[in-house]
């Protein structure tokens, strides 16, 4: 079999660390090859070496059997290597076509020949089943569509080998499904794909072979048909990983959170939550299942005081917390792990240690009469870093420099440490690898076992099914069903989430 790309014994060092140590990756023509590893294992570094952004200290790169030196991305482009970045590189006010031709404008007499470009974009889009409208503005299209524009961009530039960097991290389940179809079409048309991921399910579904790296070291390459998720996970993490979260049955006590007939409007002033009722008791995890955009965000913001609600009541342990300031909500015993940890959870330019007191800095012992006590702050930070296994060079490292999993561990540590009666966890494992996911699930269940009420919001049905004690299905701003995860199926949940079958809230399955 012919290899289109061979990266042989690649070694890349940064001051103080070896990011890639003797890694070999061989890509066959027409295959989807997964590059699997935990966050920080060195996947991106390896791909940046291939794309010409870094120069390796050691090793050889061959394209179609010929040894090459890739010193910058333009050379990579010329060799037919294209990269679909995790963070899109698109100009929002420009149209799809304008974005695609950016830097490769077809000109006639000094003028951009947009018509010709549009035609070509349309042709490529048709050929690979991308269904992209060449005239649409980037700001008007969905995230999934934007990703296709990135794919189109590489194809337009004549890429034969496509590198996808964690492409599903930003997509909805439906979009992930469509992306997988597109990848298959690309293969049928003779392209080859490297898929950077840490999601085992995707690898099993779409890939032919998988190369595993762990802490910068190449572990080996296996055929997907000859392996299983458990084996891959242990190869990646270096130990056995359990997928089914172990937990004892819940022992719920008194009501902690009580929401009655809540009405909330969204940012555009339209009703987002319409008479929602929900109770969460001490010692249980309630999972909110629903398709994104059914009022989940507004619900959480209303509870945490970030958004004013129109009417209804929200109480914590009987105390009314509706429409009070976020700080007062926090002080009433609510912990919040926000959906977007970069935007809402951390001040990335603060040291991780200072992020640990983001809600409590004004209280003793962290400050006294308005003057901060850094000794106490860093003492607390250090103990949390140890307890929650936050891997950071030091407590003075900027939060920005930590990997996503460690940032999330820090947030969870911070929120749990305040000992809240209600812990809200919104997509707590988004973008994390299996090791981190396992850790976080354990922590949530631990909180439940300590008699806390936990509200889990997730778009991953696996997570909802695994972790929750009760599942509340949200549809168009109402809880349409409360289910027992042991007695329901993904199919049933899926149907309820799509709004096909309404049940009276709270009637069903009071576990």
């Amino acid at each position: 079999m012919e290899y289109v790309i061979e990266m042989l014994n690649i070694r890349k060092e940064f001051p103080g660390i070896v990011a890639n140590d003797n890694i070999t990756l061989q890509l066959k023509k027409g295959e989807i090859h997964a590059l699997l590893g935990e966050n920080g294992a060195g996947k991106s570094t390896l791909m940046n070496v291939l794309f010409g952004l870094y120069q390796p200290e050691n090793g050889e790169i061959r394209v179609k059997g010929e040894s090459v030196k890739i010193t910058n991305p333009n050379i990579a482009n010329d060799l037919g290597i294209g990269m679909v970045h995790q963070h899109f590189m698109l100009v929002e006010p420009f149209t799809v076509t304008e974005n695609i031709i950016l830097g490769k404008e077809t000109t006639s007499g000094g003028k951009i020949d947009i018509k010709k470009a549009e035609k070509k974009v349309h042709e490529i889009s048709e050929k690979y089943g991308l269904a992209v409208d060449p005239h649409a503005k980037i700001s008007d299209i969905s995230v999934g569509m934007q990703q296709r524009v990135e794919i189109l961009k590489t194809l337009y530039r004549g890429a034969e080998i496509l590198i996808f960097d964690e492409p599903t991290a930003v997509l909805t389940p439906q979009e992930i499904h469509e992306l997988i179809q597109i990848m298959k079409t690309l293969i049928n048309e003779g392209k080859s794909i490297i898929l950077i991921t840490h999601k085992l399910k995707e690898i099993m579904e779409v890939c032919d072979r998988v190369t595993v790296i762990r802490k910068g070291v190449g572990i080996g390459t296996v055929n997907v048909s000859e392996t299983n998720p458990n084996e891959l996970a242990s190869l990646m993490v270096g130990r056995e990983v359990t997928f089914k979260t172990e937990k004892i049955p819940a022992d719920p006590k008194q009501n902690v959170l009580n929401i009655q007939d809540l009405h909330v409007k969204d940012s555009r002033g339209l009703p987002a939550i319409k008479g929602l009722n929900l109770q969460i008791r001490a010692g249980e995890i309630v999972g909110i299942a629903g398709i994104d955009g059914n009022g989940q965000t507004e619900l959480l913001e209303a509870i945490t005081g970030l958004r004013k609600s129109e009417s209804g009541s929200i109480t914590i342990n009987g105390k009314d917390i509706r429409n009070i300031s976020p700080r007062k909500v926090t002080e009433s015993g609510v912990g919040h792990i926000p959906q977007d940890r970069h935007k809402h959870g951390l001040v990335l330019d603060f040291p991780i240690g200072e992020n640990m007191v983001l809600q409590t800095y004004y209280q003793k012992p962290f400050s006294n009469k308005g003057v901060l006590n850094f000794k106490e702050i860093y003492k607390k930070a250090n103990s949390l870093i140890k307890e929650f296994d936050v891997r950071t060079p030091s407590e003075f490292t900027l939060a920005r420099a930590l990997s996503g999993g460690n940032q999330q561990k820090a947030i969870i540590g911070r929120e749990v440490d305040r000992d809240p009666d209600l812990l809200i966890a919104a997509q707590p494992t988004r973008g994390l690898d299996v090791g981190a996911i396992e850790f976080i699930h354990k922590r949530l269940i631990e909180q439940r076992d300590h008699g806390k009420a936990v509200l889990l919001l997730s778009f991953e049905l696996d997570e909802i099914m695994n972790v929750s004690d009760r599942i509340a299905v949200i549809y168009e701003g109402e809880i349409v069903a409360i289910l027992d995860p042991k007695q329901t199926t993904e199919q049933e949940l899926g149907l309820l989430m799509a709004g096909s079958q309404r049940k009276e809230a709270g009637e069903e399955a009071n576990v």
Partner: protein
Amino acid sequence: MSNRFKNLIVPVLAVVLGMLVGTIIMLVTGYDAGAAFVALIEGAFGDIYYIGETIRQVTPYILAGLAVGFAFKTGLFNIGVEGQLIVGWLASVWVGVAFDLPKIIHLPLAVLAGAAAGALWAFIPGFLKARFRVHEVIVTIMLNYVALHLSNYLIRTVLSDKSDRTPNIHDTASLRSPFLEGLTDYSRLHWGIVIALICVFIMWFILQKTTLGYELKAVGFNQHASEYAGMNVRKNIILSMVISGAFAGLAGAMEGLGTFGYSPVRGGFTGVGFDGIAVALLGGSAPIGIVLAALLFGSLKVGALNMPLEAGVPNELVDIIIALIVFFVGASYMIRIFIERLSKKKGVK
């Protein structure tokens, strides 16, 4: 490249580049660049008198730099330092003229009046930003003009009888010091430099040591996370502008109570507030950096006056050289961002 080293090397590089291009221009136009720079340095430090004058000039630069830097640390761009400086100047002189009090009360009162006026002037854009999300850059620019013309109007109608300046402040409100003047051979050096240095400490202390500074920085870095963490973002925006404005007002008070002793009717801006932006940028908005940058700008300003006489370099060329340094300082900010982007990309994933 370590961060600390980068913070140091970038501004130094900017200054060197500015001087280099200035040298080339002087050589091309046929002037003696060596003599020009010698004249520049002598004009700033060559004599105890010039040292005194340089320190005097540095004083308002430090405070204007602090004003810009403080707002910048909290994510706001205060272009209105010039206007806040003008109202601070006027308010302090007003108190200095209108009251007759013992020095121990009068001087602090006049200084505080300057700070309060600057703070009030900065409160307006802070409030508008917090309440209505009006961009502070636009409001502060416009308020500069309002400050200029309002101050001129008040001087002409209220503070004097159609004169071109206010009366002189009473000695009890003056920052001037015969002791310092004697020390520096009759320069106009006054006690303001002490106040400026105290303010440097205050800014450092607020930002680094207090819960207030913690909040302000958090809001500056990430408004959303601060809001999630229960901080009052609006309050912090206003507060940040008010403190920034107080520094700017003090810069004006230093000029009014120290250098001049009165407030003139102005045909245009003093320029100190705008130079403060360059000072803050060059100093990386850090208190010590601002002191050093202010020192550089102050010595350039005072030293440059010596260049036409000593080296025969025409005034216009002197302006060009100063502008070049400012330009490269501005560019250094771009270089810094560029380096940061580059190093961010290179971070191991």
